[in-house]
């Protein structure tokens, strides 16, 4: 029954009607940024990008967790790979992310490093149990969707008295990054499509500053074409009526107050910290670090890892792509020196990366 219910969110007739209405509502350009890698893929995969009116300008934002992982953070986990007694555990997307001098985790494995790709941080519990003489270090990248899953895993590890699991915590939080983007005069935007699943955790409240401080609209939305079109139409119509608001078009999944339980688990283990973002630089209060009570899990403390600003990848424009200043095909390396088979930067590696999405869908 419910699969039919879900199917109705990509009803082509309704899509067409919404597109027509969007077209009729536009009296000038509307520049929107989507803040979630899953939206990037959804917009391309559904064919929506080529159907959107010309006046709708689509920019991809800093919502691919792998892509915003800072160069220094990449080098830090590459340095850990191959250390005696360490087994790195990671989501698959990080395997080919390039660090300095073309290093990546795949090459580290070829050189003898022990790196295990996991589907869930939960899988690290088994890995730690099976390798009691090694430290299993999980690379924790991601936003408020991923952080609670890692916090939950740490709680389970403590309950099960697993002592050889460490977390290399590079988590980042979305609303603070949007604040930084909006404060940047070089970036011109009319509205944000807000991430569906980050918002399932944090709710809608943390985004209220967007209209209040910056006079821009923002809508939490789902991943079906109808969701996306509906949210774009709303923002355009709000602008036409001289206003900006925050909306929620994903009420089937997101409640205004979010998922309190997931937030509680997350903040039992983590606390806010300053964080470096690729492209955006240091953003105060935009990261999560392991709090003192859970310090025994902290790989940064265990290995004395300090993350500092360092050189960017030569030639790669990921930083400007993540800010919406450049489109992927404006990077001189796009499709030439940089392809999914031979990626120069993380935006071409991750399945949620803008360069990879452009390459896969736009060149077809």
């Amino acid at each position: 029954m419910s699969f039919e219910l879900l199917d109705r969110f990509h009803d082509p007739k309704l899509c067409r009607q919404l597109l027509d209405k969007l077209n009729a509502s536009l009296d000038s350009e509307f520049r929107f940024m989507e803040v979630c890698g899953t939206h990037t893929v959804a917009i391309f995969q559904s064919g929506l990008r080529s159907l959107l009116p010309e006046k709708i300008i689509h920019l991809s934002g800093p919502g691919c967790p792998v892509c915003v992982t800072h160069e220094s953070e990449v080098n830090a986990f590459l340095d850990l790979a191959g250390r005696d007694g360490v087994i790195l555990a990671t989501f698959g997307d990080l395997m080919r992310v390039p660090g300095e001098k073309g290093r990546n985790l795949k090459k580290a494995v070829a050189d003898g490093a022990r790196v295990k790709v996991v589907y869930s941080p939960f899988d690290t519990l088994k890995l730690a149990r099976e390798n009691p003489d090694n430290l299993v270090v999980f690379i924790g990248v991601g936003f408020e969707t991923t952080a609670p899953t890692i916090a939950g895993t740490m709680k389970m590890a403590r309950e099960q008295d697993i002592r050889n699991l460490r977390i290399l915590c590079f988590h980042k939080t979305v609303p603070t990054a949007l604040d930084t983007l909006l404060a940047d005069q070089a970036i011109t935007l009319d509205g944000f499509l807000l991430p569906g699943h980050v918002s399932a955790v944090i709710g809608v409240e943390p985004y209220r500053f967007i209209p209040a401080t910056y006079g821009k609209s923002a809508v939490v939305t789902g991943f079906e074409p109808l969701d996306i079109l509906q949210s774009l139409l709303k923002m355009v119509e709000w602008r036409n009526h001289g206003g900006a608001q925050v909306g929620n078009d994903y009420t089937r999944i997101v409640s205004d107050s979010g998922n309190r339980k997931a937030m509680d688990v997350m903040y039992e283990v983590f606390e806010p910290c300053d964080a470096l973002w690729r492209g955006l630089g240091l953003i105060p209060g935009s990261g999560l670090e392991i709090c003192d009570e859970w310090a025994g899990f902290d790989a940064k403390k265990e290995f004395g890892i300090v993350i500092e600003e360092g050189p960017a990848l030569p030639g790669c424009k990921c930083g400007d792509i993540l800010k919406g200043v450049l489109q992927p095909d404006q990077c001189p390396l796009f499709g030439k020196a940089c392809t999914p088979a031979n990626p120069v930067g993380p935006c071409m590696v991750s399945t949620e990366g803008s360069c990879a999405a452009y390459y896969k869908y736009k060149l077809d």
Partner: protein
Amino acid sequence: MCLAVPAEVLDIQGEMATCRVDRGQTTIKASTMLLPEAPKLGDFLIIHAGFALRVLDREQAEESLKSLGEIVECSVPSGVEG
């Protein structure tokens, strides 16, 4: 990492749900420890990195589809006050 579509709960053992993705044969397991309330068989879950983050609210889904129909008919959609 993140499944954009909800998966249907087929079985629950303690805090672990086995779910069906789309209509196919593919099943995945997800911990329910981050949900405020235990899900029921037949519920649809949003799953991220092996953990369920939300249960799909069917009433809200119906409501959204209804208002989508209305939007194509009328002019200014309602929002949350900024």
